[in-house]
């Protein structure tokens, strides 16, 4: 395996090594999507989506409104069944092993408001128990400490600002130490300081807890600051996927990520 692939002239040996490398790559892919399609009667929300996200990545899933980003997340989090195709999360099939998939993921939908009559602690305790956490109290305080959000646990959720609710949302999503965190438009509706705090939390979760993050967003500025890899979805199809670094190198002439996004979008239309 340490041999340089280019130095191998025997085609069979070369093919075997390439296969092994492919397998290794697949083992690293914690999200592996193959030919995923979702139709609602005549409307195709997702069209033969193929996508791999490797362990430890912060994957920014970009697309205009209605491109199929939320449908993808809903399918990958086992909320929705695909019409065709399959997907594996941490090696588990989303159809046949949905419970195993759910044990390994955390999810924060867009604009989640929680149970407003209950306190933050009661809300977190409810989701902790549903996640099968044995000692919710210890875990809740541990996570709140990590998110620097202690002191608000006995406040009713109805009294929380949007940014505070998002932090509780992150807390509920990471309490059970998931391998992958799915975030659907996490910065939607937040003020600049809320966006900054949330960005720090996402980066820390990835660096310190090694959580793979799959983030749906249409905010390119957020992608530029947070993500390691980007994918662009248009009309249910993946039209582009590469690392942020490569993307910026490929499109040197474009001054901003917005320009790159428009450039890729225009190319796909052609």
């Amino acid at each position: 395996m340490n041999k340089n692939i280019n130095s191998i002239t025997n085609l069979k040996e070369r093919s075997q090594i390439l296969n092994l490398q492919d397998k290794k790559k697949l083992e690293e892919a914690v999200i592996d999507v193959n030919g995923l399609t979702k139709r609602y009667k005549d409307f195709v929300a997702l069209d033969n989506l193929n996508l791999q996200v490797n362990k430890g990545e912060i994957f920014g899933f970009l697309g205009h409104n209605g491109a199929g980003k939320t449908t993808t997340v809903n399918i990958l989090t086992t909320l929705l069944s695909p019409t065709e195709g399959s997907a594996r999360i941490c090696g588990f099939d989303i159809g046949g092993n949905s419970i195993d998939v759910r044990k390994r993921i955390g999810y924060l939908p867009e604009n989640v408001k929680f149970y407003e009559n209950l306190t933050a602690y009661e809300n977190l305790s409810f989701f902790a128990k549903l996640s099968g956490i044995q000692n919710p109290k210890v875990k809740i305080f541990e996570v709140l400490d990590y998110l620097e959000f202690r002191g608000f646990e006995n406040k009713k959720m109805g009294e929380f600002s949007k940014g505070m609710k998002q932090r509780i949302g992150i807390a509920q999503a990471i309490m059970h130490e998931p391998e992958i965190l799915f975030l659907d438009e996490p910065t939607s509706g937040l003020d600049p300081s809320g966006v900054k705090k949330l960005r720090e939390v996402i980066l820390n979760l990835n660096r310190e807890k090694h959580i793979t993050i799959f983030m749906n967003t249409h905010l390119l500025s957020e992608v530029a600051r947070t993500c390691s890899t980007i994918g662009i979805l248009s009309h249910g199809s993946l039209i582009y996927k590469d690392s942020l670094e490569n993307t910026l190198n490929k499109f040197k002439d474009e001054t901003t990520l917005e320009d790159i996004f428009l450039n890729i979008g225009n190319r796909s239309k052609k």
Partner: protein
Amino acid sequence: MNEIANAVNRNIKNNSPNPVLTIAKKEYTDAVKNKLFITLLIFLLVLTLVSIVVSSFGFQGKIADYQNSLKILKDLGKITDVKTPPQFYPLQMLKGVVNYLEIIGAILGIVLGYLSIAKEKGKRTLQLILSRPVKRSDIISGKILGNTLLIFSVLGITMLFIYLIITGIGGALLTSTEIIKLLLTIIFSYIYIMFFFCLSSILTLKISSLTQALVICFTIWLVFVLIIPQIGDTMDPDNQIPGGFFQSMNISKPQEKEIMAKFHTYETTRNAVEESSITKHYERMSFALLGIKDNYNGKNLGYIFKDRWRDSVWLLSFLIITIIIEYSVLSNKNKNFKEF
């Protein structure tokens, strides 16, 4: 992948908290903190008190009428014509309570069913629950269990309130049979309210617009609870005069049966109209158990169930069908949870 599995197993042991009980507890806690629920409970208790007070005044009126008649008869020297004094049956005082439960109980069921889904839909918490390692059937089981406890709490508080009024203020003691009949009435009231809970939660799940779902729920309530029983009552010739048409005309039971036999098709239609409403079945069952209908007063449970078994079967069937539909609706994974 073993590394991932081990990491998860470190945190999630096999004997993890039961999701059904967790959801049930949350449903209960959330509802008792809901102002609308508390308002409905207080409203029901106030109506219960009013209904018993009105019934007791009615009974006092009957006693006063009896005393007056007795005095007149004595003055006329016709002491032999004296009828037996009106008997006090404490459970008969609950007629108004049953009538209120028919209306407010159904509303309570609709409100609880609507809230139990609408709050999840509007706040997107159903997506969060469904993204946890929980079976879809556990969600419905948890909701049904939580609201069962809630409805029993409401009925328990109401019945305790009734018991305290009847025994504490009224000074009447309930026999063990009467207590059992009261408890059975609680069970049938639960079935009745739970039917509306399930119906309303199914509609709230199925219909995308919450407002539309609520409007349809109340339209069904209007039809089942008010219109159909009213049509049935209006079609009943015996209901047209207070005390009963046949009794006021001094027509005996055999003669009444003979007359009604000539209106067989009409009676079948009237019965079918009444039987299509769960409210009528609940009313018939409760009135029989509480002895509100004179022909069941003082009768044992065997007699009552032999005569009214169809109503209990209908009530249970209504509930079981809605529960089955509710499970199938939430288990439908093709439902687009983007709507939630």
